[in-house]
């Protein structure tokens, strides 16, 4: 574990796309699958995970001098668990009903391997700036997948978008959400729908990647032949 090595921190886009925690590393699937049936719950959990991820990476990076081999894992878990507990206390104080919906999964963020994974791989070796950027990148990567899944599943499964968001968050939105589909496919809001949606997202990402790759190789072969 040398600072020198990690200071060449990976590109910011890694977390968003090429090494996305949800689509490539397949980490943190428990909350991703469980609360993505409504856009409002998915986005809330996404925001909390993002915040916890950045804060955990920052704190753990600051605690680098204390992280000896022997105690680094308990220390990291302690920091992450405390941050999650803070979120779990603050959320019901401001948005009680929202917390009623996703409360269990807020506490479960502790077990989100994506967060411990970043702490272990990145934050405990990197200086603060790199660690924060890494948290932001990975957190945003998780967040956007969460948002897309929540919105897709709600539209396909309920026909609405942002239903109950107004009541739960206080934003001026109609309580029934925006009606988009007349005959929704109910299964999409149940557990199988979560797996279908994630499968299509992963497949879609792989398709885009392959297309880009073959275009690049085409371009290279054209250049060499001309």
């Amino acid at each position, binding site marked *: 574990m040398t600072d020198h090595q990690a200071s060449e921190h990976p590109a910011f886009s890694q977390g968003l796309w090429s090494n996305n925690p949800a689509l490539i590393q397949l980490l943190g699937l428990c909350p991703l699958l469980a609360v993505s049936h409504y856009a409002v719950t998915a986005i809330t959990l996404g925001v909390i995970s993002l915040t916890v991820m950045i804060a955990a990476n920052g704190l753990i990076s600051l*605690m680098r001098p*204390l992280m*000896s081999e*022997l*105690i680094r894992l*308990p*220390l990291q878990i*302690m*920091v992450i668990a*405390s941050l999650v*507990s*803070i979120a779990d*206390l*603050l959320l*019901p*104080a401001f948005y*009680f*009903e929202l917390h*009623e919906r996703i409360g269990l999964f807020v506490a479960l963020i502790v077990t989100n391997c994506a967060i411990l994974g970043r702490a272990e791989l990145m934050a405990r070796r990197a200086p603060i700036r790199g660690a924060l950027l890494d948290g932001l990148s990975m957190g945003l990567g998780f967040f956007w997948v969460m948002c897309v899944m929540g919105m897709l599943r709600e539209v396909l499964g309920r026909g609405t978008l942002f239903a109950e968001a107004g009541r739960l968050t206080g934003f001026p939105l109609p309580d029934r959400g925006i009606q988009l589909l007349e005959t929704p496919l109910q299964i999409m809001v149940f557990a199988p729908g979560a797996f279908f949606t994630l499968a299509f997202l992963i497949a879609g990402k792989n398709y885009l990647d392959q297309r880009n790759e073959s275009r690049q190789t085409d371009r290279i072969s054209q250049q060499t032949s001309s």
Partner: protein
Amino acid sequence: MKPALILATTGGLLALILALLNHWTAPQILERQAEAKLAALTRALPHPDETVRPLLPKGGTSEIYWSAQASEPTGYLFGIRTNAGYSGKIEAWLSVTLSGEIRRIYTFSHKETPGIGHIIEPDQPFIRQFEGIHLLSDGLHLRSNGGEIDAVTGATITSRAIIDALTRSQATFIAARGATKELDG
């Protein structure tokens, strides 16, 4: 520094932060919880724009609420329950006028036979028969027993169970009325 010392210090510090935060958020969470509960209770009332506030929370075994429309009291709201259902417990919210006429029975928990027991669910014709009958009157019996209620064929036990729940709640209504008189006096 020794690893054990580092772990203990960090743990202590984090615990302290959490304890302080908990100290600050706990009353707020309780407040939000009470608000959410009252908001959920308004669904049990006949009119959607009515509000609910506590009347008798302390001491007694049951909770009694005021219902009001535009700050004008419309009656009382309290829980009723019975174990005399066809398959056990039936629980509902009962809304009565200040004088004791039944306004609405809002059943929220029962295990009656599906397809038959649904007669006690909110806004079903059977359960609406009770509206307007005084909680303390003799009308609160099946027609065969000299009352005003038509039992549903095939669901006599369920029908009787609701009457049982209502009869058991008479004391709650009397307590509510008593408490109101105290407030006035």
